[in-house]
């Protein structure tokens, strides 16, 4: 466990190697090897550390490793007037929560690295190494984030993953939409980081430290804030940061656009790990949040509304990755709902299971895209079941898992959240259930449109080579035809959607611009086909994970012991209370001991709800999931025309959803346009006022200097010249005295002598 500091460092070294030497010198195999081996090393160390942690007594499962001093002691005044020591060490902490997180990050990260070795093979050699450099760098920062034992170390990781997200979204930076999406992600995150930074400042002046445990200890000692106070402010600011990173309302807009990045990136960063950093951060500060019930309510409401909104958008999207992106936003909303109702362990549990099945779904969609030569529009897929058997089966497992069908992973975690929501707030529970219905629907819709039905994609050149030449041309024609006559699944809003959807990623233009556009380097496409082993193996491993990951959290009602909740509980309780809380944690549904006091009603009910009712709720949510799947099956497999009719009947609502509630347009019109307009205004002020002043001063100087020159020329020069001329004139008169005749001088001398002698003799 003393080696946990190596866990982030190893991928960091890999990133350094690939970044410094790989882009120039490494072959594809070497670059991929470096990346995968470092990730395997980190995974091995993580498993080892986890195993060691499990060996400890539950109450003392905390291990700190201080690597170095980062910021030495600086005295700073605190809010209450005391002088605190601002001191930040490079410290890592292994506790149940971070142990789970490093397992998720390194485990799924490793699988995705392996997957990417095959997926990115069409990239040029330098770009390939660059990709793995970024991917490793991301893992370095993500592991720093989850292992950091104080806010500032976490913040380093926090910003680092944001950077890597930006770099990887804009990996195909020649494409404007990708570069724009990267900027959008970065700037949106910056809004969140603003809240996070302010929250950190307030944490320091309030508690005098950045260490999570000390903060938790001191926060637990403060009274629960029923009125909005300092703790609530801190939590709200931190939540703004979490909402930015984890794509919650109103800062979720960047995540769907982030799908511009390569699919392994979407899987690793924008589904499994980075976007869960916000959830992790809230969980890390569970004690703090428990002291601020008002903010907890805000978190729950924002979470559940995000879940509903994103799921409803996901219902009608046609881009396979975009559906998954909205699904991710929706599931993150679920996690925040769990956090908000005090079920921190349930949220973290869902984070873990979600990482499995969402990574699986993304990688599966990547496999589909790979097979379809860069095509992402589901309307032009269909019937891929027979071409991609492995992908089909694994994605079906992922779909069932996310829909909450027992005994797959999603069932347990989602049910845990629904139960907590039911106990705390019925309205939240209702929205969450509706969301669950939508989730099942859109996920099965995705599977139906992709794998079932008729093949609707472009034809491929089989034996006849004559058709090859006309291949791209025929694609264009097909595209035009589709635009002209909207596909059933699309109804009337199609043309408009294409215009509005500026970052639309489908169509031939995409496969042309797409760096990874298929072709296997031969420029030919032989129809959809199963992906290579390096891609299907991670899919299978993740599918197994999506099936069994839930079993660590089987609730007591189903004769389990909810091991993960018990395991994680110490991380969500104040340090001092861990010892008492541990024994009863199994019974308390994720609500920490202190929080139980805050949520008296919820906590009490948690103990009082009968196991029969619990099982009933579970059956209900399973029924909801099945209903969603059934509806999707009916609409998209049995009677594909129903969906068309529905879309036509509710054309306005459909258009509303297809355009994502016009939120992007709204932000464009308000925030972006406002910024541009005010910048224009400031520019005008600069041009008119500032430049005017500067130019005016310049002109004034020119005029005065001209005047001064005039004075110099006339007055000063006049005086000097006049003096000279006067002297010259006068000299004409006086120089006549100098006759040059010696005798004149002698005569004058004589007169002078006579004069003086006369004066001497007579005037004395």
């Amino acid at each position: 466990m003393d080696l946990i500091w190596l866990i982030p460092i190893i991928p960091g070294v890999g990133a350094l190697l690939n970044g410094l030497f790989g882009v120039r010198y490494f072959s594809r195999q070497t670059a991929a090897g470096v990346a995968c081996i470092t990730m395997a090393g980190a995974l091995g160390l993580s498993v080892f550390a986890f195993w060691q942690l499990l060996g400890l007594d539950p109450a003392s499962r905390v291990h700190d490793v201080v690597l170095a001093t980062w910021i030495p002691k600086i005295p700073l005044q605190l809010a209450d007037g005391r002088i605190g020591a601002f001191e930040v060490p490079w410290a890592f902490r292994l506790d149940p929560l971070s142990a789970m997180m490093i397992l998720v990050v390194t485990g799924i990260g490793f699988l995705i690295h392996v997957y990417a070795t095959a997926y990115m093979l069409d990239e040029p050699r330098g770009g390939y190494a660059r990709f793995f450099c970024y991917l490793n760098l991301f893992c370095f920062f993500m592991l720093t984030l989850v292992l950091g034992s104080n806010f500032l170390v976490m913040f380093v990781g926090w910003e680092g993953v944001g950077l890597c997200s930006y770099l990887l979204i804009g990996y195909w930076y020649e494409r404007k939409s990708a570069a724009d999406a990267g900027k959008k992600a970065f700037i949106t995150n910056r809004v969140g980081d603003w809240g996070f930074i302010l929250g950190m400042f307030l944490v320091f002046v309030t508690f005098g430290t950045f260490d999570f445990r000390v903060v938790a200890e001191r926060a637990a000692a403060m009274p629960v804030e029923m009125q909005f106070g300092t703790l609530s402010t801190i939590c709200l600011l931190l939540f703004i940061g979490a909402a930015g990173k984890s794509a919650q309302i109103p800062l979720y807009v960047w995540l769907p656009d982030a799908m511009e990045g390569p699919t392994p990136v979407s899987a690793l960063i924008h589904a499994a790990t980075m976007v869960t950093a916000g959830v992790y951060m809230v969980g890390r500060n569970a004690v703090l949040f428990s002291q601020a019930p008002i903010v907890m309510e805000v978190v729950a409401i924002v979470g559940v509304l995000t879940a509903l909104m994103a799921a409803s958008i996901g219902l009608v999207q046609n881009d396979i990755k975009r559906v998954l992106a909205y699904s991710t936003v929706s599931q993150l909303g679920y996690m925040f709902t769990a956090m908000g109702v005090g079920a921190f362990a349930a949220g973290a549990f869902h984070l873990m299971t979600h990482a499995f099945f969402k990574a699986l779904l993304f990688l599966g969609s990547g496999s589909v895209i790979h097979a379809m030569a860069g095509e992402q529009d589901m309307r032009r897929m269909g019937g891929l079941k027979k071409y991609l058997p492995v992908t089909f089966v694994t994605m079906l497992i992922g779909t069932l898992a996310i829909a909450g069908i027992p005994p797959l992973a999603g069932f347990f975690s989602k049910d845990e959240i629904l139960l907590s929501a039911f106990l705390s707030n019925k309205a939240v529970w209702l929205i969450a259930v509706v969301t669950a219905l939508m989730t099942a629907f859109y996920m099965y819709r995705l599977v139906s449109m992709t794998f079932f039905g008729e093949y609707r994609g472009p034809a491929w050149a089989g034996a006849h080579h004559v058709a090859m030449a006309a291949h791209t041309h025929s694609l264009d024609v097909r595209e035009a035809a589709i635009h002209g006559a909207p596909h059933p699944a699309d109804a009337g809003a199609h043309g408009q959607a294409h215009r509005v959807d500026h970052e639309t990623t489908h169509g031939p233009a995409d496969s042309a611009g797409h760096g990874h556009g298929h072709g296997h380097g031969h420029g030919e496409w032989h129809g959809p086909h199963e992906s290579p082993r390096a891609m299907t193996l991670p899919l299978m491993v993740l599918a197994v994970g999506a099936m069994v990951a839930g079993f660590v959290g089987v609730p007591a009602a189903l004769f389990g012991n909810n091991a993960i909740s018990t395991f994680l509980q110490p991380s969500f309780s104040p340090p001092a209370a861990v010892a008492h809380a541990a024994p009863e944690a199994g019974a308390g549904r994720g609500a920490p001991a202190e929080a139980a006091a805050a949520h008296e009603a919820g906590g009490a009910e948690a103990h009082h709800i009968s196991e029969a009712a619990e099982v009933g709720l579970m059956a209900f949510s399973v029924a909801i999931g099945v209903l969603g799947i059934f509806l999707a099956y009916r609409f998209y497999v049995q009677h594909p025309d129903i969906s068309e009719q529905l879309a036509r009947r509710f054309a306005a609502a459909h258009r509303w959803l297809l355009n994502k509630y016009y939120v992007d347009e709204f932000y464009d019109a308000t925030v972006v346009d406002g910024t541009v307009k005010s910048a224009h205004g400031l520019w005008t002020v600069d041009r008119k006022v500032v430049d005017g002043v500067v130019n005016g001063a310049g002109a004034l100087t020119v005029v005065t200097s001209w005047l001064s020159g005039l004075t110099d020329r006339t007055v000063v020069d006049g005086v000097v010249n006049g003096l000279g001329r006067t002297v010259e004139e006068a000299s004409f008169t006086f120089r006549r005295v100098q006759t040059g005749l010696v005798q004149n001088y002698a005569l004058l001398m004589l007169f002078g002598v006579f004069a003086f002698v006369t004066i001497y003799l007579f005037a004395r």
Partner: protein
Amino acid sequence: MVSPTHYMLLSATLFMIGVFGVLTRRNIIIIFMSIELILNAVNINLMAFSLQWQNSIGQVFTLFVIAVAAAEAAVGLGIILAFYRNKETINIDEMNVMRW
């Protein structure tokens, strides 16, 4: 009996003749000779007072003046010779290069 007054009158006459010569003549040689007259007028004065007061200092002075006059005559004649070589004349009015 010759009184000092007589000597003085002689001396003054001689001096005035010398001054007149210096102021009126154009020939440098003559001016030079007139200066000698002035010096000798002084010498007569010195001798007269020496005789009057029975004091030999006056005579000593006179001897000095004669010696200095001789030296001065040598230098002056040298200058005149140099001037003549340049100007081919000894007219004092031609000696006017210092005027404006």
